[in-house]
């Protein structure tokens, strides 16, 4: 039936996100928190994540434009980014954030810029995938 097919599709999509490393088990925790009292919990928190992280990305971009780079500030931003991404289980994004933080610690400006590009990239990819996922699942 269509419904079953959709459900299966949803499951497949979800599993692939895990298998490809976009999400980790923290995301499962989010799903566990969803219940009758909180029926849209996952979507809400993911939406919140993306709006918050988009803002952070903008801040980082601005910070990266200043010279010399303020590594402390950048590290701060990344810390926040890390906190949110790990909270929703955004595995790849989180990993890239870690890389960025390493570059900050090493005060490697070029490294930071490159790492940030990857963060943005992973962020965009995840956003696309999750949007698709929610569209299907909701």
């Amino acid at each position, binding site marked *: 039936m269509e419904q079953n097919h959709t459900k299966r599709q949803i499951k497949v999509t979800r599993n692939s996100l895990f298998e490809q490393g976009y999400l980790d088990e*923290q995301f499962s*925790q*989010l799903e*566990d*928190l969803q*219940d009758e*009292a*909180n029926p849209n*919990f996952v979507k*809400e*928190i993911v939406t*919140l*994540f993306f709006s*918050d*992280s988009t803002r952070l990305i903008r801040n980082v971009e601005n910070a990266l434009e200043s010279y010399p780079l*303020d590594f*402390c*500030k950048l590290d*701060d931003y990344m*810390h*926040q980014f*890390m*906190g*949110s991404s*790990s*909270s*929703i*289980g955004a595995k790849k994004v989180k990993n890239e954030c870690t890389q960025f933080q390493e570059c900050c610690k090493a005060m490697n400006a070029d490294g930071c810029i490159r790492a940030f590009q990857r963060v943005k990239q992973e962020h965009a990819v995840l956003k696309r995938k999750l949007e698709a996922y929610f569209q299907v699942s909701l």
Partner: protein
Amino acid sequence: MTVEEIRGSDHEIDRFPIGMRVLAVDDNPTCLKLLEGLLRKCQYHVTTTNQAITALNMLRENRNRFDLVISDVYMPDMDGFKLLELVGLEMDLPVIMLSGNGDRNLVMKGVTHGACDYLVKPVRLEELRNIWQHVIRRKVESKSKNNHEKSDQGKEGGDQNEKLNRKRKDEDTDEENGNESDDPTTKKKARVVWSIDLHRKFVAAINQLGIEKAVPKRILDLMNVDGLTRENVASHLQKYRLYLKRISQQANMVVTFGGNNDASSYMRMSPLDGLGDFRTLSCSGRLPNASYAPPGMLGRLNSATGVALHSLTAPPLVQPNHTQTKLQPVVSSNHQNVNLFQGIPPSFDHDQRQYCNKPNTQLTDVGSFDESRIFTGTNLAGFSSIDEPRMFRGSSTFTDPISVLANQAGVKLTSTGTESFNHLSDSSGFLDQNGNQPPNFSSNLNLQPLAESYSYPAVINGGFSSNITTAAAPIEPHGGGLVGDIVQNVNRSLPNQKGGSRSKQDYSQYSQNALPTQATSALASYDSLSGPVSHSRPNGSRSIPFQTEQIKLQSGFVSNKSYGSLDDIIPGMMKQEQDTTMPMNGEFGYDPYIDPDREYNDESR
């Protein structure tokens, strides 16, 4: 003791921990939402806020509204540790820290600041399911402490330190009746508001008796306040001791952690804001603990009479050189800000931090801090290694703590005063050496642009502390003379090598001999800032050493500057914020930083 007693009039008592009321604080919206979801899943009653200030206000409004607080460590408006301290002191609620960073130093810091647990993000549901135990534990300890107190007529309150003094709050909580304590055995005592004056008397009494002999009964007698019971004094004393202890522990930690890079991260997270809270606290007069502001600190700096220099928070630091008289005015004006322990640490911290930036290398022997040190040193002791980065930039003459602060471009001082102190002391060690800054000094400086600091002005201590913090950045660290001196005197009971006796003196004076600490004297002795501050704490019973006289603030500390004056200074200092870290060229020499805008009373100038 049953849960019902503990919970008071909560209807859901029998279902505890279901319905446990948690206040969650985290500036990160995603994390906060997750936390909320998790806590709801545990069937707790959750209130969330993304601002520490808001959280504090909520708690102050009604401490009984919540059973437990969970707070993030890194927050823009206030350092989580500061919040932790405040909540612990003022409200005596269990606080759990939360952070994405599970670094050992951070965790240690959390513990020493009184957190009952430290969780690392992302938090798991299982971890949250168990947090209710902290609520029960605290109540149990509180009650047992209460019992102990009652049977403890005239015994020293010291032995009560083992119990969590903060529990006292729990006793008085629940019922905020007037001041009648009908039944001494009931845990519900009237809540006594430890106003600045009251705390001042308290501290004066302690100083008079000497910290070892400071028994609640005698303190009560000396204070001679109507309506104050021995139990009130006893619990207040407990808190005070705990605070001192913590500060000394922090001081110890500073030594251990000195030079730790992580410190910089701490630096980052210590908003000066804590002071602000104190201010509110003191203003509202609801800070029973607020009065813990280490009078010693003030005294030391201000060469106060050992009276509760509540206003210590800001002015004292800034005016190390002030003679006692000078400081007095400040003190009084700041008394609002004094905020009791809480308040002071922030201010101190800032200053301290500025100075202490130096990595541990030259850290004085923090380890030798002891409680008495705490008395005097106030927040200095509380410095953890984290603050190191903040410490002094090294060099420059210490003359002016404010300037020191100012130089610390963007150094974010943690609110824990003790921390700053420790740093200071540590740095003082450095400073002494011909003002040569230890190499790591600069490198460890992790000055955070103050711009990111919190709005100190709002902070208590007449905004002094806050001012200091903000200003701290711009202030050029003077050769730790001033600050170091202060710190040394304040925090450490260890005499400076050079002026060691001096600091000791102050310290002991303050804490042990109830002698008015000559903070100024301490400050004045730039020279005394000899090498490593590893002063061993002299026993409190030291008579005031000669150094007192020597102490003269070389630096241009603003003498008894009222807040107004501080405000003047602050802008000046703020200007300096723009400067990047000060060149730590080991100018520890004590060239007083002379701020043309400031009125320096010091004679050495």
